C-alpha cells in the first residue's frame, strides 16, 4: 500500500518537474512547481517525516512559491525572445546536462542495487519535530544561527538595493493626526450674506 502510494506520488513529482520546464506559460510553470512541492511533501509523509512535510508546504508552497507567482505574473516575459536565446545555448547546455547525468549514472552504478539503507524519520525521539528540535538548538546551533545571519544579510542587501527615500512623499503621521485639537482645525465665523469669508 505505501509502495503504491510512493509510486503514484513519485510519478506525479517527476511529471510536474518535467512540466515546470516544458510548460510554455511561465505561470503554468510555477503552478507545476507548486504541484511538485506539494507532492514531495506527500512523499515525506510516507516516510513518516510529517513535520518536515508540513514545513515544506508552509515555507515553499505557502510563502516562497506565492512570491514566485507574484513576480512571474507581474513580469511580462517575452517568450519568443527567450526561445531564441535558448537556441544559442542548447548545445553547451545539453553537453553540461549530459555530463551531470553521466556523473549520476556512474555514481549510481558504483553503489549498485540492493543498498538496504533504512530511514528513521525521528531518531531518538517520539516525534519528528522533537528529533529536529533536539539537534537544531544544540549540536547545530552554529549552523542555525549562521543561516539566520545569512537571511538578515539578504534582507539588508534587498533594502540597500531597492529602498529609495523619497523626500517629497507624503506620509501619514498618526500621532499628529490623533493629537489634533478642535481649536487647531476649526474656526467659527459668522458669515453675513453678500460679504464672504
Amino acid at each position, binding site marked *: 500500500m505505501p509502495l503504491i502510494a510512493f509510486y503514484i506520488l513519485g510519478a506525479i513529482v517527476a511529471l510536474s518537474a518535467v512540466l515546470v520546464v516544458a510548460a510554455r506559460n511561465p*505561470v503554468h510553470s510555477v503552478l507545476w512547481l507548486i504541484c511538485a512541492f506539494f507532492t514531495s511533501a506527500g512523499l515525506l509523509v510516507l516516510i513518516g517525516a510529517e513535520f518536515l512535510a508540513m*514545513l515544506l*508546504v508552509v515555507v515553499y*508552497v*505557502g510563502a516562497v512559491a*506565492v512570491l514566485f507567482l507574484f513576480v512571474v505574473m507581474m513580469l511580462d516575459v517575452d517568450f519568443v525572445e527567450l526561445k531564441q536565446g535558448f537556441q544559442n545555448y542548447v548545445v553547451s547546455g545539453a553537453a553540461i546536462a549530459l555530463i551531470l547525468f553521466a556523473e549520476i549514472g556512474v555514481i549510481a552504478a558504483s553503489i549498485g542495487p540492493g543498498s538496504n539503507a533504512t530511514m528513521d524519520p525521528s531518531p531518538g525521539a517520539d516525534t519528528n519535530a522533537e528529533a529536529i528540535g533536539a539537534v537544531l538548538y544544540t549540536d547545530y546551533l552554529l549552523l542555525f544561527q549562521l543561516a539566520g545571519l545569512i537571511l538578515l544579510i539578504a534582507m539588508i542587501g534587498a533594502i540597500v538595493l531597492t529602498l529609495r527615500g523619497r523626500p517629497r512623499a507624503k506620509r501619514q503621521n498618526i500621532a499628529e493626526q490623533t493629537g489634533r485639537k478642535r481649536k487647531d482645525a476649526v474656526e467659527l465665523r459668522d458669515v453675513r450674506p453678500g460679504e464672504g469669508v
Partner: protein
Amino acid sequence: METLIQWGGGVWGGIGLAVLQIAAFLLVLLLGIAFLLWMDRKVLAAVMMRKGPNVVGPFGLLQSFADFLKFVLKEIVIPAGANKTVFLLAPILSTTLALVTWAVIPVAPGWVISDLNVGILYIFAISSLGVYGIIMGGWASNSKYPFLGGLRSAAQMVSYEVSIGFVIVTVLLLVGSMNLTDIVNAQAGGFWNWHAFLLTPEKLPLFPVMFAMFVIFFVSALAETNRPPFDLPEAESELVAGYQVEYSSTPFLLLFLGEQVAITLMCALATILFFGGWHAPFPVPIAADLPAWLTSLGSFAIFVVKVVFFFFIFALVRALVPRYRYDQLMRLGWKIFLPTSLVAVIVVSAYVVFLQPGMEA
C-alpha cells in the same frame, strides 16, 4: 491468500469508514454554514435596521438554499481572454483546500477524522494555500480588477500568516504539543484555563500576553480570510469585486463557499486554541454511567455554540467597522502584530523554561 483478502478487506473497510465519516462531517458542516450565512445577513440587516432575508421559509431560514439553487442553475460564463483551465481550477482549489483543513479539527472528544500529531501545522500549511485560489482566479480572469484584487489578497494573506504563525507558536509552547486534541485538553476545567483568559495563580503573569495573542489572532483571522474591515481584495468601491469579478454561477458559488468555510474554520480554530474547544466554561459534573455518545454530543454542542459566537462577532465586525486603507493594513500586520507576537513568543518561552512548574530545562 486468505490473509491477503483479509488485509484487502481491512484496507477497503478502513477507506469506506473514512469516506462515511467525511461525508457525515461535510453534510453537517455545509448545512451549518448555510445557516451561518443566513445569520450573517440577519446581523448585518439588524445593524442597518433592515429586516434582512425573510421571504424563503420561516424567518427566511431557507434563503441560503434558494441562493444555492440559483447559482447552480445559472450559466457558467468564461471570459474570452481567460486562461480556461486555471480559471476553473481556482474556485475548485479554494473550496477543496478550505474543506480539507477540517479533517483535523476535533469537534468533540474523539470526534475527529484524523487525529494528526502535527495537526496545527497541517492547518497552518493548508490554510496558507488558500491564497492560491484567489491569486490564480485573479490572474486567469485576464482582467485588471481581478488581477489587482488577487495581488492585494496575496500580499495581505502572506503578511498576516506570519503573525498567525507566531500566535500559534505561543499556544504550542504552553501546551507542548501540536496535536489539536491535546491543545483542547490542556484547557479543561474551566474558563480560567482557557488560553484567552489564563487566570489561574501560576499562569496569571501570562494572562495579558495570551489575551493580546487572542486579539491578534482574531484580527489576523479577519485579515487572513479577507473579511471586512480587511476586505481590500474585493473592495467593491475600488475593485468592483476584486478577484471574483469575472466569476458567475457555480464557480462563483465555489469561491464564495470556500471563503465561508475558511471563515468558519478560523472561528473553530479560535475556539480550539483560545476558548477551550469543547470544554464548558465551568466544571460540569457528569454522571459516570452516562453513555459516551451523549457526553460527546454535549461537548459538540458546546463547541458549536462557541463557533457560532465567534461567527457572530465576525458578522458584527463586518457591520460596524469601516474598511482599512491598504497601507494601514500593511502597517498593522508588519509593524504592530509581528513585533508584538515575536515578543510574546519570547516571553512565553521564557515562562515555560524558567517559571512553569514541572518543566525543568
